[in-house]
C-alpha cells in the first residue's frame, strides 16, 4: 500500500482531525504526538473552536472529564464530574482536557465545615450568547451535591442532602438547597444534564433520583416506584431526551 504524499494530505488533514471522536480524548492526545503539523493544528484555537462546533451539532454540551487520581482512566460524561483532588476531600479539581487548564475549588461542604458522608458533582459549561468554543478556561459552573452529618445527630436520623452551584465568573457558591429524605445520598456516578435546565444525580445504588434545578437552584428527590426493598441491586434509570436546550445560567 503506497503512502500518500504528506503535502497532499495537509489539505484535508484538518478535516480528518476534526472528525476524531470527542468521547475519546486519548485519541486526540495520540494524534497530537504524531508530528509538528498535527501537533500545532490540534492546539490551535481556531481548530479547537471548529472541533467543538463540529461535535456540538452531534453531541450534548460537555466541558470536562472525570479525573480520578487513582485511575488512569479519563472518562467523559454528559455532565462531567469534578473529582476530589489529590490533596483530600476538601477540594475539587476541574480539568479541561482540551486546554489543559486545571482549577481547584474549595468544596462548599468544607467551607461550611460539614462532615460529608458522600458527595457527587457535575461540571457544566456556562453558555448563553458566547459558545465559549475557543476560549480556553472559559466560564463554567459546578453543581455539587453532598449528604452530610449534622453536628450532634445520631447516625439513624435522616441526614440532610444539599446542593450548591458554583460559578467560575463570580468565584462563589450559591446558597444550599437542602432535602431531608431517607434515601437521598448521592451516588458518586456520572450525572446527567438534561434539556430542562437541571442536573440529575442518582442516589445511593441508584434507588432514587436527585434533581437540581439550575434556574431555581432547587434540589428535589424524585422517588422511584416502590419495588421490593430486599432487592439491593439498585434500579436502572433511563433519561429520555426530548429537546436540546442551552443552559439557563450565565
Amino acid at each position, binding site marked *: 500500500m503506497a503512502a500518500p504524499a504528506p503535502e497532499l494530505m495537509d489539505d484535508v488533514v484538518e478535516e480528518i482531525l476534526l*472528525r476524531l471522536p470527542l468521547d475519546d480524548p486519548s485519541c486526540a492526545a495520540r494524534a497530537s504526538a504524531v508530528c509538528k503539523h498535527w501537533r500545532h493544528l490540534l492546539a490551535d484555537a481556531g481548530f479547537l473552536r471548529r472541533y467543538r462546533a463540529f461535535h456540538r451539532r452531534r453531541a450534548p454540551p460537555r466541558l470536562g472529564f472525570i479525573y480520578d487520581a487513582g485511575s488512569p482512566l479519563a472518562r467523559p460524561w454528559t455532565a462531567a464530574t469534578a473529582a476530589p483532588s489529590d490533596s483530600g476531600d476538601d477540594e475539587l479539581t476541574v480539568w479541561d482536557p482540551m486546554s489543559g487548564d486545571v482549577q481547584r475549588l474549595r468544596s462548599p461542604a468544607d467551607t461550611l465545615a460539614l462532615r460529608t458522608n458522600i458527595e457527587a458533582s457535575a461540571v457544566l459549561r456556562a453558555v448563553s450568547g458566547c459558545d465559549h468554543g475557543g476560549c480556553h478556561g472559559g466560564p463554567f459552573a459546578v453543581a455539587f451535591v453532598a449528604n452530610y452529618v449534622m453536628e450532634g445527630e445520631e447516625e439513624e436520623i435522616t441526614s440532610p442532602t444539599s446542593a450548591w452551584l458554583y460559578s467560575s465568573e463570580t468565584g462563589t457558591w450559591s446558597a444550599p438547597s437542602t432535602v431531608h429524605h431517607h434515601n437521598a445520598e448521592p451516588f458518586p456516578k456520572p450525572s446527567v444534564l438534561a434539556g430542562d435546565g437541571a442536573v440529575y444525580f442518582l442516589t445511593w445504588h441508584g434507588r432514587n433520583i436527585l434533581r437540581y434545578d439550575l434556574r431555581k437552584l432547587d434540589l428535589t428527590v424524585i422517588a422511584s416506584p416502590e419495588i421490593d426493598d430486599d432487592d439491593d441491586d439498585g434500579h436502572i434509570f433511563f433519561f429520555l431526551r426530548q429537546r436540546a436546550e442551552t443552559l439557563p445560567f450565565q
Partner: protein
Amino acid sequence: MATGSGAAAAAADAEEKESGSRMITLTSNEGKAFVVTEASARQSATIRSMVDDGGCVDKGFPLPNVDSKTLARVIQYCDEHGNKEAHTVDERAALAKFDKDFIAELDADKAFLYDVTMAANYLHIQGLFALTTQCIADTIKGKTPEEIRTAFGIEYDLTAQDEEEIKEEDTHA
C-alpha cells in the same frame, strides 16, 4: 432532479426542462472523457458553480488533479446521489446502504481512499468528503502515534521539547 434548495433549485429545474437532461463531460488528467448527467455533476460544488456561471458546458471540464481511476469512482458516488431521489425513507435507506458499501470497499485500499478524498476536496463534493474523512478519522482511533505515522507516511519531526511536553501530558492523562 437538480440538487439545491429554494429558488436555486427551481431555477435549475426550469433550466433542466428547457435544455432537456443535459450531459456534461469531465476529463481526467489522463485525457479520458467521462460523460455524466448534469444532476450527477452538480454533486460537485466546483462544477456546479462553473455551470451556473454559464461556463463551458459544451466543451466539458478538464480535471487536471484527478486521474481516471479516481474520477470513475467519484462519478459512481455522484451518479448515485445525483440521479436518485432521496425523499422517502426507503430511498434514503438505499442511499445510506450505498454509502456504507461504497466506503467499506474504499477502506480496503487506503491509498485509493486518500486519492478519492483529495478529489472530493478538490471538487467540493461535500457528502463524499464527509464520508471519506470520517472513515480516515475512524482508522486513527485505535492507533499509536507511530502507527499513525506509518499509515499516513508522516515523518517524525518532533523536537526534544515536544517530546518533553508529550511525556508531561501522558502523566496527566
